[in-house]
């Protein structure tokens, strides 16, 4: 296989993901509405309750809406990552996953292609959100819109790989509700997305430690700092490390010679 053939394959996978996204307009709308509800309603209500002191990367007092914006960007990507995991379970049931895995390209390349495609879709959603948020007076520095891009790409890959790993563990579509309860909600709420960690520490020291070890906290902080043109090395290290671990896990899970698929079998193939 030549490099050109690899490029054609990757392009095809990204093209299909983009096309599916365009066809599912309600998915785009709901992906945007969710964070906007948090921004317009939740943040407005909480503005008076939570005072935010000056913490890095912010240099002045900020509104609560400004504080939760990076968390909501990460939330968009969290939902997107889990949604692509849902689509992989669905794909597997529908057989599309089988078509993907029949390709003669190496399996790691196919799965990585799917991850990249999903990440690009989530980044598009994030920029659409930032555009609307701009009119809600959330105005990061202009350069921040550019510096946040690598952070969004990396966080998208991390959450996408996590979703992919989970999708290999979920046998049926119905189990996705469990992912919501046991992954999405705890990850989101036990993080710095909605409240700064020093605030959490005042309320509950143990929750503070939980937040500290939650990779989602670091994803939020990586985006927060990047959006204000700053680099957070700890957040980067954690997100990078977790991406590598989740991705490796997902590749192993989908490897026919070692993976869970082989041990357990896929739906519709047990006969």
């Amino acid at each position: 296989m030549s490099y050109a053939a690899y490029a054609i394959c990757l392009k095809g996978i990204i093209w299909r993901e983009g096309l599916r996204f365009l066809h599912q307009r309600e998915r785009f709308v709901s992906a945007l509405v969710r964070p906007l509800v948090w921004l317009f309603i939740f943040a407005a209500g909480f503005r008076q309750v939570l005072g935010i002191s000056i913490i890095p990367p912010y240099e002045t007092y900020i509104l609560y809406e400004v504080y939760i914006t990076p968390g909501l960007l990460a939330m968009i990507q969290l939902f997107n990552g889990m949604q692509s995991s849902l689509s992989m379970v669905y794909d597997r049931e529908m057989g599309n996953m089988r078509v993907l895995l029949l390709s003669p390209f190496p399996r790691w390349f196919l799965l990585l292609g799917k991850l990249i495609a999903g990440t690009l879709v989530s980044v598009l959603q994030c920029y659409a959100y930032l555009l609307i948020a701009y009119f809600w007076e959330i105005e990061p520095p202009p350069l921040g819109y550019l510096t946040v891009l690598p952070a969004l790409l990396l966080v998208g890959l991390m959450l996408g790989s996590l979703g992919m790993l989970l999708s290999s563990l979920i046998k049926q579509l119905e189990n996705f509700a469990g992912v919501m309860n046991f992954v999405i909600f705890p990850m989101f709420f036990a993080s710095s997305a909605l409240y700064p960690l020093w605030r959490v520490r005042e309320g509950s020291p143990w929750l503070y430690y939980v937040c500290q070890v939650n990779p989602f906290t670091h994803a939020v902080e990586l985006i927060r700092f990047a959006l204000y043109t700053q680099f957070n090395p700890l957040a980067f290290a954690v997100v990078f490390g977790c991406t590598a671990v989740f991705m490796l896990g997902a590749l192993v899970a989908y490897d026919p010679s070692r993976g869970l698929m082989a041990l357990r079998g896929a739906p519709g193939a047990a006969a």
Partner: protein
Amino acid sequence: MNAPALEARNVSHCYGARKALDDVSFSVGRGKFCVLLGLNGAGKSTLFSLVTRLFALRQGSLAVLGCDLQREPRKALEQLGVVFQSRTLDLDLSVAQNFYYHAALHGIGKARANARTEELLNAVQLADRAGEKVRNLSGGQMRRVEIARALLHKPRLLVLDEPTVGLDIGARADILKLVRGLIASEGMSVLWATHLTDEIAGTDDVIALHKGKVRASGAVTTLLEQTGASDIKQAFMLLIDEEALA
């Protein structure tokens, strides 16, 4: 080297304690229409999952045109076209878009993909539906599209897992005729899994699979001689009759 189109040697596969395939060996000759005949639960789909590398092969070996599936998976997959039992088309995409995606997965560029799509859709008489969403096609048309798509990268072995399930008599006959015609026009070999004996022609090869074991394999005439049956249906019933075998 003239290796068979597909060769299985001592293949076994278990789901937990249940043995789905037990020491299965057979070969599909080049240019042959070979029927994998078995009742529901015989192990046909498990065999397909192993051939398509969805499951790992734990015991035995499988080779597509001499390429071992474990040692040279890419070479083997390049020569393999697959039609699964369940639908694998993207319903929200058009027929042509489904083809383009499949072509990309095989590293085939747009120009070549377009030419081949046109050629294949003509062959399955669906050229006028290229721009239509797959969702709007009938069951039989979807099957024809899936078969045409499986041929996009010019495989030399086409494997089909119960491709006529859920189709009416007319559509079933169409699909059979189409695939038989492909052997002649594209010069390839076919492994056709089914539980319906009326899909078998006198010139076919048959592998009778029952409860994970190959009970007999060979040309239809050989199986008839072997069992003394008057037709293939009777021959198959005799082959899977536990008491008669005991």
